[in-house]
């Protein structure tokens, strides 16, 4: 086939172009490169690799699941029908009860080392994990912590979606009595070495979740699952986040940055002629691409409407509050 191309090189197809731009995005953290049209086109070209995905809901609010339903590039219906194979998702799946849990356990055995585990919400192992029981199998109750300990070592990778799953988030905030933690911390305690991809945000933008899966699936299609996971893991920052989406601060891409530089500060939330830093905006220390990506079909985003509360950060919410007071730094 390559003979058709001058110089015997593989043809520079749309698919290769996408891959090139995707690699650039993943490696350099140039967030602009991972635009909606890239992920849309990539989703259309993914064909072979559809490892089963088990989406476990832990101690959270289901907001991450609701957010991913807003995916537009590609549309969530395409994601579910063509891009990923969602073998277990408590809010979407037709099945229920023991049958559903046993189906997941069976599928996990059949695809040992070849499935993806998504965790939404935090996990607690206190009181034998009873603060979060996710179902029964074989007439036995499964706390999330037990299920995670059983499945995670055999997963190709774990995607910790949302700030609770990644770092504990609001569930683990000061005053919590449940001992909840994020996936990495839980795995550290249990000596589980499966790679974890953190996709924080409260909730994460649908593009961050779907896009991270696409990066992983694309790498898996090129290199095989194990090597693909390795490449994806190499593209994570120190906090375990894909650089493609979390490579720059909200502040540096903020359309109001010039107001900050000028020293023109807002006097109240409804004053849109000044920078919101004076009101407590956490943009300078919050790493995500919301200002460029915008939210909900791009109609708006956090700072345009009010201010950033730093929901993507590992120390959210305690280190980011009070939300509406000027930062000390």
């Amino acid at each position, binding site marked *: 086939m390559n003979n058709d191309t001058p110089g015997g090189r593989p043809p520079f197809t749309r698919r290769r172009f996408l891959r090139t731009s995707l690699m650039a995005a993943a490696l350099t953290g140039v967030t602009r490169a991972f635009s909606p049209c890239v992920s849309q086109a990539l989703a259309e070209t993914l064909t072979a690799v559809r490892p089963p995905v088990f989406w476990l809901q832990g101690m959270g609010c289901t907001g991450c699941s609701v957010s991913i339903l807003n995916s537009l590039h590609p549309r969530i219906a395409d994601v579910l029908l063509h891009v990923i194979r969602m073998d277990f998702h408590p809010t979407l799946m037709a099945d229920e009860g023991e049958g559903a849990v046993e189906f997941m356990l069976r599928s996990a055995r059949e695809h040992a080392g070849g499935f993806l585990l998504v965790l939404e919400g935090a996990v607690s192992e206190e009181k034998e994990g009873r603060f979060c029981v996710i179902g*029964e199998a074989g007439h036995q109750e499964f706390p999330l912590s037990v299920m995670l300990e059983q499945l995670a070592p055999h997963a190709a990778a774990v995607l910790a979606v949302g700030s609770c799953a990644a770092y504990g988030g609001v569930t683990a905030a000061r005053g919590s009595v449940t001992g909840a933690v994020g996936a990495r911390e839980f795995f550290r305690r249990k000596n589980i070495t499966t790679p974890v991809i953190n996709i924080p945000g409260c909730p994460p933008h649908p593009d961050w979740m779907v896009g991270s899966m696409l990066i992983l699936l694309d790498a898996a299609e090129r290199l095989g699952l194990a090597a693909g996971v390795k490449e994806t893991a190499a593209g994570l920052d120190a906090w375990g986040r894909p650089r493609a989406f979390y490579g720059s601060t909200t502040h540096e891409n903020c359309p109001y940055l010039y107001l900050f530089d000028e020293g023109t500060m807002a006097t109240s939330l409804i004053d849109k002629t000044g920078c919101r830093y004076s009101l407590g905006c956490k943009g300078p220390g919050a790493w995500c691409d919301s200002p460029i990506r915008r939210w909900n079909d791009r109609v708006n985003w956090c700072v345009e409407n009010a201010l950033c509360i730093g929901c993507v950060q590992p120390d959210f919410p305690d280190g980011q509050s009070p939300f509406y007071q000027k930062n000390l730094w």
Partner: protein
Amino acid sequence: MAVSIAIDPITRIEGHLKARLEVSDGVVRDAWLTGGMFRGFETILLGRDPMDAPQLVQRICGVCPVSHALASCMALEDAAGVTPPREGRLLRNLMQGANFLQSHILSFYQLSSQDFFQGPSTPPFSPRQKKPDLRLGEAATRMMLDQYLESLDIRAICHEMAAIFGGRMPHVHGIVPGGTSAPATSRQIQEFRSRLKTTREFIEKRYVPLLYLLSESYADLARVGKGWATAMCMGVFPHPDTGEEAIRAGVWAGGKEYEFDPAKVMENVRYSWFTASSGGSPFSAPTLTVDLDKVGAYSFSKAARYSGMPMEVGPHARMWVGNMELSPMGRELAPKHLGVRARTFRELGETFAFSIMGRHLARAEETWFVAKAMEGWLDALRPGENPLQPMPKLKDGEGYSLTEAPRGSLMHCLRVENGRLSFYQVLPATLWNASPRDDAGLRGPMEEALVGLPVPDEDSPVNAGRLVRAFDP
């Protein structure tokens, strides 16, 4: 012989719920519902800056964050003696309304519709219970799948509406103590209006007619699941000028209507994994203390009661209490599919209103009602008008709020001491509908509604899941 069945997890709901049923001769004889997850927001909130509460409480529920933000802001405003400007009240109604549409469409299509049709033979539509008891023909099945897929776009559009004035969804930025964070622009109003039009068309041409049709196709499910047949609404969508609520507060019990009185709300914990002293009035109950070894306890949910009575909450309760007018589609379709002439919801009859299909249909009708009301609020907006009343620094005070989340009544009570939250109680709809037994041993509303439910095949107890999802717990 009685058989004990456990359904765990009950899927396609928000949260973690398990049902234990005692079944004999194909009928549920007794039921216990277990809320299987605890995070403890009420202790997490203590000692914090009160202004942070509206953001934090949204994380209680990713489906209804707008309602929690609103309830928290209203309680803080009550404590501070602040009233948001008219514009802020309108924008709040619009964000809350948009999320009602989003939540109701999600509740029926994404969560419940698979109870009535078979999707494609791939996950997440498959596998499913061995005998799913599906009765639609090929054409109707295809229509439902088309609507399922279309509804995914529509509910995302509803989120976009809320985000136009609220910054993003889920978890809005725009609802803040004192009002909302941004004046509306003409362009935003236009963007909102076009999305509302698309959504309203879907509601009128798809959602509402489908529910009348399904109520006929599954006529037996339009007669079962009655339960206590009580109803409560705390009132929602205040008129920006008069304060009169578009969906009014009230209580229905024993065939009579009563005025709602917040002092009659109590929380029982006898069957909950909390110490005995954790219950009481939401205005004064001490902070929750977990007790997982408590004898007899079986849920992390408390049992909220009104004058000692379990109360059903949610769309059917609101439609019943307010005896809301049916949509033009409903008035036309009711004789054809339900065999009754009805102008208002109560005219559909108590048996239907408190059945599996009745609860679903009430949700569809309410979606139409809210969409229509939203058009009026949108017309009343004045671009550029100030929506925010500055909040004074709250040092000491207490306040509470009453509203409705899409899934039912919502109450927040709080106290501020020395500029910090010293008390916070949240009473979401789950504590009503999905409650365990109370101190007097009365079953929670969903438990009671499960009793008597036909379960012809113990290996595929599909009706139990259907009933639970009809409540949208």
